[in-house]
């Protein structure tokens, strides 16, 4: 089960990372700055994959304790934690040479939802085996 969950986590992470990079490109082309000096593409990818892998391990540990209620509790926790992480970009202090830091949350906050979205999207595909 853990192996399947880790695969789900890795695939979700890659999907979220790709979505993040596309969003960054779109954001940069429409607003002129993708904040690539702060949100480096490689870091976006690594963060998404790492986030989803941690979610996979969390799901596995929860399933050992909660059995049938795992899905509901996990989804709730994942959503709450995702919302909590948006405080990061809001409070982030960017390098002073960065132009218009007020546009940074608009880039980073949606990205914080991509791992959870990717997980929730792909989870049904793994439903039988997980």
């Amino acid at each position: 089960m853990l192996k399947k969950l880790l695969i789900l986590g890795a695939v979700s992470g890659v999907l979220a990372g790709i979505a993040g990079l596309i969003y960054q490109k779109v954001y940069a082309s429409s607003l002129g700055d993708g904040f690539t000096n702060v949100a480096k593409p490689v870091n976006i990818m690594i963060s998404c994959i790492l986030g989803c892998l941690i979610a996979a391990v969390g799901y596995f540990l929860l399933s050992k304790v909660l059995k049938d209620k795992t899905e509901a509790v996990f989804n709730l926790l994942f959503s709450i934690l995702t919302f909590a992480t948006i405080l990061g970009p809001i409070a982030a202090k960017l390098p002073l040479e960065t132009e218009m830091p007020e546009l940074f949350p608009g880039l980073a906050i949606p990205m914080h939802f991509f791992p959870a979205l990717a997980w929730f999207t792909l989870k049904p595909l793994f439903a039988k085996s997980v």
Partner: protein
Amino acid sequence: MKKLAIFSVTLLLMAAVFAFTVVAPTWKITDKYNISFASNEVGGIFKTFKGSITFDEANPATSGFDVTIDVASINTGNGLQNKHAKSDEWFDATKYPVIHYVSKKIVKAGNAYQVTGDLEIHGVKKEFTIPFTFQRKGNAATFNGTFNVNRNDFHIGKPGGDVSDNIKVTVAVPVTK
């Protein structure tokens, strides 16, 4: 004849006065300046600084500064903090768009200098002395100064609170002739 003599002498005296009037050289501010501030909680820079500088290190009394900082160019690195700093609770950038400093007297103080002038922030004008150094390399030079501004003197923000009353300001202004 007498009138002509008086006129000639007056003309001669005026010429002598103008001949010995020392005019300090004018310096042009380059784009690489740094106007930064720091306190316990916040720090940042002002990105727009302009003005006129005339300065002669050998004769500082003939020198003068008239510089402005665009308040809206404040950057703390955080969008929310920038908005907060520009709001009427702090700098009120809409009502008081610039910080203005005009020198009245510049004197040598040891290896450095001291400029005394009127500093206007947030609509409050106060006499303010700034110590600074001047390092010259040919036709280029840099003015450096570090000093503290008590924000309560200029009614910026509420006294006390998270942001300390004394804000450390660091100024580095490279100039060219």
